[in-house]
């Protein structure tokens, strides 16, 4: 298994290289000139040219790419064109909120969605199944920002239980952290929950029709044991794949959720950088996202071993 992990980790290198080339070319070939934005309305052509020179944007693309790649190999992602702050520092400042938001969302979503999916499969065709599926369709169809606004209206403005916006680090204050993270995590979790609940239900329905489930019932096992030990465990491989793939969905949702709740995370950093064509920041953040995604998929693949002993790496 260790050999497999090492092989997979080595395989991330070409993946990251392809991502790096793709992101770099896409950004530099798309319209938008940061020098023109920085120079402002009063600037002459000459001033814009000078700023382009200062930023190294006049060099041929391969020179710019080479320089960036070389710095990257030294752990230097460059500096933001606008603030002049190192990209690593900007990402460092923003990592915790996004990480915590994603983790809390996954935690809430998985702990709620899997039992709901199991119950829906167990009670298939009943009003419980229909209620769960209606909720899932709702979670899947309503845009993230609408759910966010509804939760702000209810949870913050009407009930006054949670702050409207902002983020408090878990290291600063646990109650402060919890009060700030619950609404965004529920907002972001809605679509994720819907996805997992639907997948759990579908896979469980397949598994519940298997012979070994019938045998388990015939042995006189309690329903709970059959559902959890026999059925769910066998259904977990496709469910964990969905959980892993859903993280991509989550990354997209993070951008909107962080904007609605004014959370200073990586999603907001990305949007702001894209709107200003802040090349080094966009490149840095996308690399971090891609790396996380690749790593997470590796973890998901490894988790299959826990659910299915037939799988060997």
């Amino acid at each position: 298994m260790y050999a497999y992990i090492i092989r997979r980790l080595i395989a991330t290198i070409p993946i990251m290289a392809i991502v790096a080339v793709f992101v770099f070319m896409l950004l530099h070939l798309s319209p938008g000139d940061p020098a023109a934005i920085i120079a402002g309305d009063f600037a002459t052509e000459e001033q814009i040219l000078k700023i382009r020179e200062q930023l190294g944007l006049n060099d041929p693309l391969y020179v710019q790419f080479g320089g960036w790649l070389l710095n990257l190999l030294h752990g230097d992602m460059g500096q933001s064109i606008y603030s002049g702050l190192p990209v690593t520092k900007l990402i460092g400042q923003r990592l915790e909120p996004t990480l915590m938001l994603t983790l809390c969302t996954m935690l809430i979503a998985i702990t709620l969605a899997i039992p709901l999916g199991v119950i829906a499969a167990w009670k298939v065709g009943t009003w419980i199944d229909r209620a769960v599926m209606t909720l899932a369709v709702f979670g899947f169809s309503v845009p993230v920002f609408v759910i966010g606004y509804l939760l702000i209206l209810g949870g913050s403005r009407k009930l006054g239980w949670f702050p409207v916006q902002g983020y408090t680090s878990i290291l600063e204050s646990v109650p402060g952290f919890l009060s700030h993270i619950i609404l965004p995590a529920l907002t972001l979790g809605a679509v994720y929950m819907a996805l997992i609940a639907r997948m759990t239900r579908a896979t469980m329905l397949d598994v519940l029709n298997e012979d070994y489930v019938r045998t388990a019932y015939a042995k006189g096992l309690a329903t709970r044991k059959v559902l959890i030990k026999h059925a769910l465990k066998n259904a977990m491989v496709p469910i964990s794949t969905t959980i892993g793939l859903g993280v991509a969905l989550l990354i997209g949702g993070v951008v909107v959720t962080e904007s609605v709740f004014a959370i200073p995370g990586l999603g907001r950093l990305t949007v702001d950088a894209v709107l200003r064509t802040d090349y080094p920041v966009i490149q840095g953040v996308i690399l971090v996202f891609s790396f996380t995604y690749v790593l997470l998929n590796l973890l998901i693949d490894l988790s299959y071993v826990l659910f299915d002993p037939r799988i060997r790496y």
Partner: protein
Amino acid sequence: MPITAFANVLKKSARHAVLSAPIAVAGLMGATAPVSAESVLKIVPHADLRNVDPIWTTAYITRNHGYLVFDTLFALDENLEVQPQMAAGHDVSEDGLTYTITLRDGLTFHDGSPVTAEDVVASIKRWGARDGMGQKLMRVTASLEAADDKTVVLTLSESYGLVLQSLGKISSNVPFIMPKRLAETDPNKQVEEIIGSGPFKFVADEWQPGNQVVYEKFDEYVPREEPASYAAGGKVANVDRVEWRYIPDAATASQALLAGEVDYYEQPAVDLLPMIQSDPSIKVETVDPLGTQGVVRFNFKYPPFDNKKARQAALWAVQQADYMYSIMGDPAYFEEFCGAYFMCGGPYETDIGSEPLREKDVEKAKALLAESGYDGREVLILDPTDIPVAHGQALVTAQALREIGMNVKLVAMDWATMTSRRAVREAPENGGWNIFPTWWLAADQLNPVTNISVAASGENAWFGWPENQKIEDLRNAFAKETDAAKQMEIIEELQAELYDFVPYIPTGQYYQPTAFRDNVKGVLEAPVPFFWNISVE
């Protein structure tokens, strides 16, 4: 900076965790955290502060930041007159060519060093290399020197009527004074440190682009004794800390204000105002009495708008009310009509020549368009859909031009793309353009020198590159004239020529409301949001 920066942030967080763990535990156990006696003003600014050097960029948000941190030699007051600010006073020689400016006592930078005349000279020179009005001043400057620690001597090579107006310029780029060691930075590079001598200090460690900016009261700042008036007078810091909290989503920012999480919301969206106003503890005021001018700019290099008749046709085809309703919606926040190129309510207000804009006349517009020889070619209007003020103007212009028979194509894009596309000098079909919409604060449009959208120096002019020698001569005559009455005569002649030449369509004058909670006292009425004089109860 390498990955160590990232590690440092994490280390800092870990240190913070150790230090704050007892507080967190106490919080969990229901204990009350010690209440700080520090007064904090929490603001939602109109944009995110991405760069902190107000000479390097013209961004209004950086200018507002500059006013907190830096001070100016002279400043504009509410009568639009220039008053001494860091200057104790000044003398002008009889021939009007030598200005001797003396610094007042007690001026100190945030790093503890005293402000000297050398700092002033270096700062003005750096500003003069970047700012349009500064460049004009530098062109007529023979020498700018420090006679001693407290005396600056500016010698002109020819008579110039706008010396004080330039040094007391209220909007971007403002001639802020910084220490010589920083002011000697290449004007095309950002300064590495933000050290000013203004009423607040910039807390660099707490700056998180995209999230927050923090300023602390500078205890050694000595305010002037006069009451605060626009950028002039006593800048008294009445709060210990000013926190800018950038909330990009207008609905969330409004809810944060309603919930009392922030005190002051600089530019609430107009369509959300009824909701904000429903709370009696919130005041909504237009703190900028001068307002903003909408601008629809033509490209003079290519047909059809290289022809004066086509531009005049466009002027007859539109009406300001359409633009203003699309931008602001509520007539409480715009002028019904403003025909002054140099703003209504400003010192150079006149409506000479504005008839075409006042009375929409589609038939006349069609006749003028026919006279221009318009051949039905496609007219490209750049449409930055992410900026409502610009997007609204693009849509209204497109509709009006279609009404008179023009073949209009709206090219949707984001603002960042538009800022580079408008600089393209190629033909519209090769990546150029015919029209783009924008806006200027009145503070920038008040006279023909600062209002760069009337400049008509051809290839050197602002995007669109109009060429008109008469306009340029009148602008220069205005700058050199020192007599106010004669300046007004020049303005009248200039505006008549502008309405004939049509460098751009002034699409109206509107006023951006500001919302703040009723615990916020002392908000100043000014074209720039100033945060001195404000207290939080």
